[in-house]
């Protein structure tokens, strides 16, 4: 219990620290939202100065930070200059779409990777295992962007999927059509996500299971006549779970931030395009809001992973740090 309390406190301190750093870094970055306007000779400097003071951009850093924290407490998280609206609802609207994509991707990835990793470890040296090793090395070394673009090109070239601008709107569209439409749109980005993530996770699961398979206690279990299947599921997997749990934590951590590039490439209306646009146009609080959301998921995901590890590994639970 104390462990939990300590971890929570640390998490909150971490988030606070990240927010301060965000402010510092954006302050150091060149440019501001109004740079374009300034170049326009029809806009007078007074107008710009007014706009600036209206958005509080002329105040010192500390004051701005203080105001932002107050805004956060009101659940607004600042004001977007481009959209002329509070940041939080903007973010959340897009975040829902992103989460739909990444949650589906994560579910599928883990459903495929866990059994595949275990199966490959149990059949080490088999042709399929070797083939997988080669293929996954390949996938892991190519940047995600390249894979995304490549798959997109294939889909377009062979017209595998309908590609239209945005989700269907309007009255009288049944739920079934809506879901079908959604599924078709999600197919490409989810496939890319699953493809890229699985390669990494399967490798780790396989390595960890393989390591446990070679330990004396597994051999001892066999020597006592326990059948192979039971040894695998009841004896090996629990012992091999720790690295997988850490990876699961990473997956959770990346629910918001892991798909930004893919969304941009596939035209999925999630956080990705929004943050990209905000960054390019220096829409300050929107950018900071996006970073904080991402950080929240990161910290939260790791926290959950830590708790799961605590539950899974008795050595951590009983504080078994020997004084040897």
């Amino acid at each position: 219990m104390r462990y939990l309390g300590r971890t929570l406190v640390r998490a909150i301190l971490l988030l606070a620290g990240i927010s301060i750093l965000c402010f510092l870094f954006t302050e150091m970055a060149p440019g501001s939202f109004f740079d374009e306007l300034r170049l326009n000779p029809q806009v007078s400097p007074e107008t710009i100065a007014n706009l600036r003071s209206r958005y509080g951009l002329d105040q010192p850093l500390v004051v701005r930070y203080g105001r932002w924290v107050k805004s956060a407490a009101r659940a607004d998280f600042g004001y977007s200059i481009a959209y002329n609206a509070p940041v939080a609802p903007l973010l959340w609207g897009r975040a829902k779409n992103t989460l739909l994509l990444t949650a589906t991707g994560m579910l599928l990835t883990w459903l495929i990777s866990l059994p595949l990793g275990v199966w490959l470890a149990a059949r080490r040296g088999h042709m399929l295992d070797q083939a997988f090793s080669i293929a996954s090395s390949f996938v892991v070394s190519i940047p995600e962007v390249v894979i995304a673009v490549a798959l997109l090109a294939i889909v377009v070239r062979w017209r595998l999927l309908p590609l239209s601008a945005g989700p269907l709107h309007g009255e009288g569209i049944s739920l079934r059509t809506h879901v079908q439409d959604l599924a078709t749109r999600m197919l490409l980005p989810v496939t890319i996500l699953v493809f890229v993530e699985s390669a990494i996770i399967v490798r780790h699961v396989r390595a960890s299971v393989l390591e446990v398979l070679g330990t004396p206690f597994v051999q001892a279990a066999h020597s006592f006549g326990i059948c192979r299947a039971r040894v695998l599921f009841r004896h090996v997997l629990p012992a091999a779970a720790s690295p997988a749990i850490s990876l699961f934590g990473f997956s959770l951590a990346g629910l918001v931030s892991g798909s930004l590039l893919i969304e941009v490439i596939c035209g999925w209306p999630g956080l990705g395009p929004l943050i990209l646009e905000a960054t390019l146009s220096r829409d300050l609080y929107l950018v900071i809001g996006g970073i904080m959301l991402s950080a929240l998921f990161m910290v939260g995901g790791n926290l959950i992973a830590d708790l799961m590890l605590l539950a899974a590994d008795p050595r951590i639970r009983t504080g078994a740090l020997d004084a040897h």
Partner: protein
Amino acid sequence: MVIWGEWRLDRSTDNLLSIHRLGVTYSQPNGERLRALDEISLELRTGEVLGILGESGCGKSTLANAILGLLPGHARTENGQIVFHDRDLLQLSEPDLRQIRGRTISMISQEPALSLNPVMTVGTQIAEVLRAHLPLTVSQSRQRVTDLLWEVGFDQPARICNVYPHQLSGGQRQRIVIAQAIACQPAVLIADEPTSKLDGPLRSEIMDLLSGLRQNHGTAILVISHDLTLMAELADRIAVMYAGRIVEIGTRREMFLRPLHPYTQALLQLAQSSLVTVPGAKHRFPQIEGESASGVAMQAGCRFEPRCPDRMSICVAHCPPEVAREPARSVSCFKYGE
């Protein structure tokens, strides 16, 4: 005394386990085959403790694994039989072997610290062995685990059940492994170096535990070790192995009083000379010259010949056959020819 098991004896003799001329080879990465066991013949009788004495690399662990069919993939048994309950273990299928492992023949391996699963309680690990072989209900299983823990020397079995291996000391972990091995009341227990990683007081405890098993339950024990004091304490008969062959077999008394084979003689001399009663002065140990012959590919003559103080010219070319000197006493050495 509660005798375990309803085992039948081999009708022709009263041997529980008979090994006839067993040979095992390993294939090496460079393509050669390494002969790990050569013409091994042994008998284990009901309720006796047979000690296999030999250095590391002589093939003792290979023998233990061969009996239970646990040899790794690159090993091959060539000829030979291992007869148990009128069946040749080498011919059995994997499911049949699984029924025997842990149930009628059990093994304790070398590293107690690593032989237990770190994420399962020790009670669960013992229960797993029970579950694999006996149709017990949950409460029967729990009762049996408690009885076993008590038998191997834990005062508070109920508490120990829920403890994890890392919370126990080395000696306690060794007891848990023994509890797993005797869970199904096996007729034969194979103990592979049960005390080599333990020091002083722990060794005596484990030795007492093992001899208690024999006395209380009539379990036959095959003790594999390089430790002469263990043999002196436990074994009824001792078989000396060198480089994959048995070079001498006899009762404990005879082996210690009148060792025949030069290798046995050298081992005994070494053990006796390193004792404390020799006045504490720095001196050389009586060493057996040369390298121990593990990892030697198939060789024509006697394996011990390069290191033997009594070697003769015939020893280089031919491997000495087993010669029976007295009942239950045999030696493979040309010094004791027909």
